């Protein structure tokens, strides 16, 4: 099974700085949780532009972290921002599930 995050690019950027890495992981957790809430809010208020913007933001963050599958879900969400409510709701569930996997992986790295 492929790991949900490939940290090789991030580690090249941080140059082995563990303190920076930890700070970035914590930043990822708080940013992602806020963006998932924004996606939920956009879904509930039927706001496709807010949905697109939150998906776009999370996509960039995910790819920069090395969470390819999470980023791909966000890309699908961004591109499908005018799609039906049910599809977006299902996608949000997938995003949340994938994020949980990423979070567990990163928490293991921290320990």
């Amino acid at each position: 099974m492929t790991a949900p995050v490939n940290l090789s690019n991030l580690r090249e950027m941080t140059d082995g700085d563990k303190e920076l890495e930890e700070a970035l992981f914590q930043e990822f957790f708080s940013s992602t949780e806020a963006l998932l809430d924004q996606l939920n809010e956009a879904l509930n208020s039927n706001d496709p532009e807010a949905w697109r913007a939150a998906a776009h933001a999370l996509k960039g963050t995910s790819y920069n972290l090395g969470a390819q599958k999470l980023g791909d879900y966000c890309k699908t969400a961004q591109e499908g921002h005018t799609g039906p409510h049910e599809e977006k709701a299902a996608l949000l569930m997938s995003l949340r599930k994938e994020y949980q996997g990423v979070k567990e992986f990163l928490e293991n790295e921290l320990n």
Partner: protein
Amino acid sequence: MGGSLDNKTDPLSPPQQTKLELSAHQRDALQKVLSRRPLRPKLEILIVEDQDFSRKLLMGLLQREHVCFGARNAFEAIHYFAEHAPDIIFLDIELPDQDGHGLAGLFKKLDPQTYIVMVTGNSYKKDVEKARENQVHGFIAKPYSKQSIFNAIDVYSKSKLKRSSL
């Protein structure tokens, strides 16, 4: 040296849409700092990126060697631009209060020497075309790579060396 504005202590939040202009005070500040720029011992780099994770990642990479400023939106970017006249700007195309292309156009108009590298998470042809129209110097797609960032700085440094030898 370097830094970022902290919204908790900054009494001004960005407007929903930041105007693409400098105040009179900012114009004066820019003129003063432009005259001092050739004497700066280190490169000053402005990173304009609304996502905290991505901005901090890029700052973490660059502030080991350079003076870096992080801006979360166009409002902060204009503030840092006027105060510091950065040598290089890494500029996200999608910002919460302005279009990155518009901001690039403003910076180029005020300081044609500014070296701008557009950064995007999308790969739209129209973005590349607009970047060319603005005569920016580079275009980087996310995810960031150390090589592409360092290449952009290397190209800038070589062009600066070439200009100073003329």
